[in-house]
């Protein structure tokens, strides 16, 4: 267990290349307090978009199989690391992005087939342990093949900040937000209009009943992993130009994704997005006004309180409790 460096999460590096709230760049005009507030909003929403994608991944797998996938954070890490590695070999950026998402989705499929499907009847504790094992294999696999160093991905369209009311927005932040919105809309269509999407929803409601009407729930399981891995990887790719990707970022990102999903209500799509954005904002506000060292701790404590007061989350149905 040599990797004690899991604290070096992507989010703690975010803003590394963005102008600091107190930099000269950003105090040139406008009210400094308002500008700083706006700056923190942008930073929070950008990270929050990644959390939202991760939270959607958690919710999809949870709905399809009742499994909380502790390896979800590794999918985000894989997306960032694979895209950055492909880009470093000289591949065009769009190819690196698509390649990373596709490769991670394939890994998600393999995980479902090899590790989750054989243990379908195990209890919650056993499944938690299996997905932790999977996350360690993925983390170690990246560490041994792609190395321990952090990797950067070039921004999708330059890194010249756009000035807005005295605050600076990175173009990458807009990419992250816009992509998340498109993905959420596409997912809504997927669940409402396609056979597979409806199958996942039916399985979430009642697996036995879904099997009785002819839905292949094993396929639903593996497809939910493919979808979640792809979503996680996309989040990782979007955030990689802002914060360097690193093999050990997954644990914290996974925890954040789950926290976001829990805020919104596990299994709820709208909840995942709202939860992700809320968590991102909460963190950036804590970092800006209180202590950047404790932003992760504050987020976790807030979520624990939410879980204790309202176990089904803000948007969740009454099925919370994880049993």
């Amino acid at each position, binding site marked *: 267990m040599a*990797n004690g460096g899991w604290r070096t999460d992507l989010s703690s590096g975010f803003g590394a290349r963005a102008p600091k709230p107190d930099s000269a760049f950003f105090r040139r005009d406008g009210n400094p307090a308002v500008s700083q507030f706006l700056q923190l909003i942008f930073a929070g929403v950008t990270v929050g978009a990644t959390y939202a994608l991760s939270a959607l991944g958690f919710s999809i797998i949870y709905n399809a199989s009742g499994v909380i996938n502790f390896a979800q954070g590794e999918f985000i890490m894989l997306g960032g690391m694979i895209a950055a590695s492909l880009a470093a070999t000289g591949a065009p950026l769009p190819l690196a992005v698509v390649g990373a998402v596709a490769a991670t989705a394939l890994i998600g499929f393999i995980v479902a087939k090899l*590790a989750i499907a054989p*243990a379908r009847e195990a209890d919650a504790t056993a499944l938690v342990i299996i997905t932790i094992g*999977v996350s360690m*294999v993925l983390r*170690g696999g990246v560490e041994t093949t792609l190395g321990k160093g952090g990797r950067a991905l070039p921004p999708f369209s330059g890194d010249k900040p756009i000035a807005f009311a005295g605050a600076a927005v990175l173009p990458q932040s807009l990419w992250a937000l816009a992509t998340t919105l498109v993905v959420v809309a596409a997912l809504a269509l997927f669940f409402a209009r396609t056979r597979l999407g409806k199958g996942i929803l039916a399985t979430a409601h009642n697996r036995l009943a879904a099997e009785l009407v002819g839905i292949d729930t094993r396929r639903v399981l593996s497809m939910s992993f493919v979808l979640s891995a792809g979503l996680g990887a996309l989040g990782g790719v979007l955030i990689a130009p802002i914060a360097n990707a690193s093999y050990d970022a997954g644990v914290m990102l996974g925890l954040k994704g789950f926290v976001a999903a829990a805020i919104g209500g596990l299994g709820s799509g709208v909840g995942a997005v709202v939860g992700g954005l809320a968590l991102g904002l909460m963190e950036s506000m804590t970092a800006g006004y209180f202590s950047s060292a404790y932003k992760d701790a504050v987020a976790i404590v807030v979520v624990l309180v939410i879980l204790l007061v309202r176990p089904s989350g803000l948007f969740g149905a009454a099925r919370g*409790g994880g049993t």
Partner: protein
Amino acid sequence: MRAPPLPRALSSRAPTLLFAAALVALPLVLPNAYYFDVAIRIAVNATLAIALNLLIGYAGQISLGHAAFFGLGAYGSAILVGAFGWPPLAALLASAAAVGALAYLVGRAILRLEGHYLAMATLGLGVVASIALSNEVALTGGPDGMAVPDFSVFGWRLAGERSWYWAFAALLVAAILIAGNLVDSPAGRALRALHGSQTAARTLGVDAASFKTRVFVLSAVAAAFVGSLYGHYEGFVTPGLAAFPKSVQLVTMVVVGGMASIWGSVLGAALLSLAPELLARFEGYETIGYGAILVATMIFLPRGIAPSLAARFGRKAA
């Protein structure tokens, strides 16, 4: 259907005596200080795993943040002895008591959660603890850690691998005896009933919340106790002691050795403490190895190595 737990009351003393005898004989074959150090690490991890197994294996409540209690115990002693000049024994007891109080407060709140939520809540609390240890630089020395003075009681100083070996070996045997007694007591039966079905246990008059909190506190206090001593032995503590990888390592030992099996925890701790020594040259592959062992154990030997072997050979059933 879950197989009924095996009664251990009748045959529990003989294996413990044999094991204690083996621990007494072990120094005769350990060639140098390095091997003593490895033996000490195994004993420390085995004691921690037994404590955690009471929670996971018997009460059925997962904790992914148990290393936090271990780390807080170690830091408690380090700070009280190093910075405030307390006697080590007093610091040890005070740290264990403080961790117990913390575990009681936390346990009362989060043990209402179940399954995945409890796993994430304990994971989150572990993360909060190690963030605090890393950032309270004035008190803890931050990420670089801090030195811990020697352990001494009434002028007698515990130093050197050999002396510490006896201390940790005695602690391990004590843990085995205490855990064995607890498991065979009415409280132990109540815990196993909780693991089987909380609802069924409740209808039989088991106060689920109270039992879960008590075993959580017991497990945390034991981890803090071992942590304090381990800090003194190492002479140095870092936030890594309380971090998530250490928590996962402990869960791995419990699960691989066998949930609800005290000897399984000893076996799991021995195997997984030796693995890094053997795999030390292959950095990164160690993580893969740990992960693969976890997945394979849960799929092929869901009850863990020791109980599966016991069932295979039909022993221990009497």
